[in-house]
């Protein structure tokens, strides 16, 4: 078997080099490695001594994985992780390729892996995570998942795969009692994270958790949390455990980012046990770079451009809720990566007082929505490059910041076209 792994590493790496020279296709090398050695992921990742932490949910996977890896590193662990967006099997395999030895060994104490919901059951069957951290279940990709209940079922399977620790968001309608919906295991401890109820009530749309119908349940928020968000600042929060309260820096404004930090902290606490140190959480999150499009600020010429990613209704709503004032110059780009934008009619867009320019194949549908909400639209230009050029040519805003609201595909395209060439999903 080792020979086969070695072959997979060699060929995968050659493909990786070729793919990078052409400037794309970061998941392809991993796919090829898995074709050569079907057990590529198990053989490499299962040898990591402290096992796998799997992070999943509708929103915040990349941010939280990034936070958790940083916190564990601050505690002295060598962490193997997948770069944001590389959360399908081939993406994880590509990440392995960039670090694995020819014999298939990864130099890591622990793996922290962002896991796509749809591939969650398959991946956790392969990777047998010791720890599972589930963030939220929100209305997301109905074109792909059809109904939120299917996501609930998938994440129930992921939760049930946790052998040691299961960490759940108590403020999520579906996760609050997910531990009672999976086969019990004496070896598995369950902990919760959440936010002070006043913070959730104070947020314009709460945590945007998917509504739950039918079955008997307990109310979101009603579990005792090991880590809570106890206060929230513009880009910082205070987290509390039973023993201590400590400040953390957040990638951007918003309760959702604070909950991501609480989830990462609760997972670190479960993994590290006695070694867990809250001051190291503060240190780790202080020095963290933002993940693409999650509250990221790009510098283009002498201007700063804030990127707001709209992955799904919840992420757009929470990011809009977190705006302090209506942004001065707004660009919107949405394409086929958002096949069914119907959900924009569920979103409260009142945080925007106008949009300057819309592009992408769904641009006209967004213009209709905005106009029905009474929000002025400067115009639509379906030529994406042209639209970006026009927007960047607008006079520098008085508050010094342009705002781009983009779906994932448009974010990657526009980042790339502006010269930010480092790709998500595997290439380093």
């Amino acid at each position, binding site marked *: 078997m080792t020979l086969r792994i070695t072959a997979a590493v060699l060929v995968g790496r050659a493909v990786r080099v070729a793919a990078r020279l052409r400037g794309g296709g970061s998941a392809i090398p991993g796919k090829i490695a898995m074709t050569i050695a079907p057990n590529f992921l198990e053989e490499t990742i299962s040898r990591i001594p402290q096992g796998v932490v799997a992070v999943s949910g509708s929103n915040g996977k990349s941010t939280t994985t990034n936070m958790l890896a940083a916190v564990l590193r601050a505690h002295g662990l060598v962490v193997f992780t997948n770069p944001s967006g590389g959360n399908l099997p081939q993406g994880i395999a590509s990440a392995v390729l960039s670090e694995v030895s020819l014999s298939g060994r990864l130099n890591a104490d622990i793996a922290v892996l962002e896991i796509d919901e749809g591939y969650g059951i398959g991946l956790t069957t392969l990777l047998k995570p010791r720890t599972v951290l589930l963030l939220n279940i929100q*209305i997301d990709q*109905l*074109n*792909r998942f*059809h*109904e*939120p*209940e299917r996501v609930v079922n998938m994440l129930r399977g992921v939760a049930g795969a946790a052998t040691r620790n299961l960490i759940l968001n108590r403020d999520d309608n579906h996760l609050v009692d997910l531990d009672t919906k999976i086969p019990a295991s004496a070896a598995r401890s369950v902990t919760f994270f959440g936010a002070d109820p006043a913070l959730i009530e104070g947020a314009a749309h709460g945590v945007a958790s998917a*509504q739950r*119908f*039918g079955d008997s349940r307990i109310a979101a928020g009603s579990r005792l949390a090991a880590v809570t968000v106890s206060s929230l600042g513009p880009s910082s929060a205070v987290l509390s455990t039973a023993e201590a309260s400590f400040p953390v820096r957040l990638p951007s404004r918003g309760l959702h980012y604070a909950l991501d930090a609480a989830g990462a902290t609760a997972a670190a606490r479960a993994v590290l046990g006695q070694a867990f140190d809250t001051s190291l959480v503060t240190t780790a999150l202080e020095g963290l770079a933002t993940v693409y499009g999650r509250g990221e600020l790009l510098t283009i010429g002498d201007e700063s451009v804030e990127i707001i990613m709209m992955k799904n209704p919840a992420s757009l709503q929470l990011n809009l809720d977190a705006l302090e004032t209506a942004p001065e110059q707004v660009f919107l780009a949405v394409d*086929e990566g958002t*096949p*069914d934008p*119907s*959900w*924009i*009619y*569920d979103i409260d867009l009142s945080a925007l007082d106008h949009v300057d320019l819309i592009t992408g*194949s769904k641009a*006209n*549908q967004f*213009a*209709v*929505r905005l*106009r*029905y909400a009474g929000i002025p*639209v400067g115009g*639509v230009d*379906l030529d994406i490059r042209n639209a970006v050029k026009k927007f960047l040519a607008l006079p520098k805003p008085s508050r010094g910041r342009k705002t781009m609201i983009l779906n994932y595909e448009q974010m990657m395209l526009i980042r790339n076209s502006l010269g930010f060439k480092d790709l998500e999903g595997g290439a380093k």
Partner: protein
Amino acid sequence: MRETVRILHLVPSTLGQNGETGNVMVLTRRAELHGLAVEVLQQEAGDEFPFDIDLVYIGSGPVSAQIVAQPAILEVASDLRQLADEGVPFLAIAAGFQLLGESVTMADGSVLEGAGVFPVTTTVGGVRVVGDFVVESRLGTLVGFENRGSVVEIGAATPVGTVTYGQGNTVESGVEGYWVGNLVGTHLHGPVLANNPGLADWLLSVALERRGVVYPTDAVPELEEIDRYAAEARRVIAAGPLSE
């Protein structure tokens, strides 16, 4: 004669997923921009039924929500049938359309009784169809998004239109929805009225006609702007429809 359009929105707490409430907003905004007042009444389980209604709307949701919504719909089934008999226009979307039909046969074989407003039956199952949806109707091209895990039998009734992209009621039928008299049921999402303002205007004009009021056709700049964007949205979808 009053100038208020009264819209009955059935079970919005359960059947309001994926932007479907946008249809009510579109009807409301269009009527308001033409100078009409609009009152939206929400009908939930246990509410008294308001008969003085000009238009009935029901949205969609997942099967779990459909099951929860069904008793609330059955409570008022005969009232709804009476409104339909009186010619009150209905717009019913997907899960809501199915619940206003005769029955919904679930994947496990159990049968959910419907309100019997639409003489159609639904069977959950078959291949999941997900993608852009283009239908040629008597109002021209209607576009939307199809996300369907069931088939609807409408018998010999008139459909909303002929499918030019997507599946429609069944794999073989080649037609979408049900449109007989003033009753419209469809699986066009989008929400359907957002990108197809002609259908919204038709519903409003039929609703007003019953009261002897003519729906205004004066040019409203804000609606003209919206409708230009909607026409472009239809053009873009119809020119290059995609599915999963």
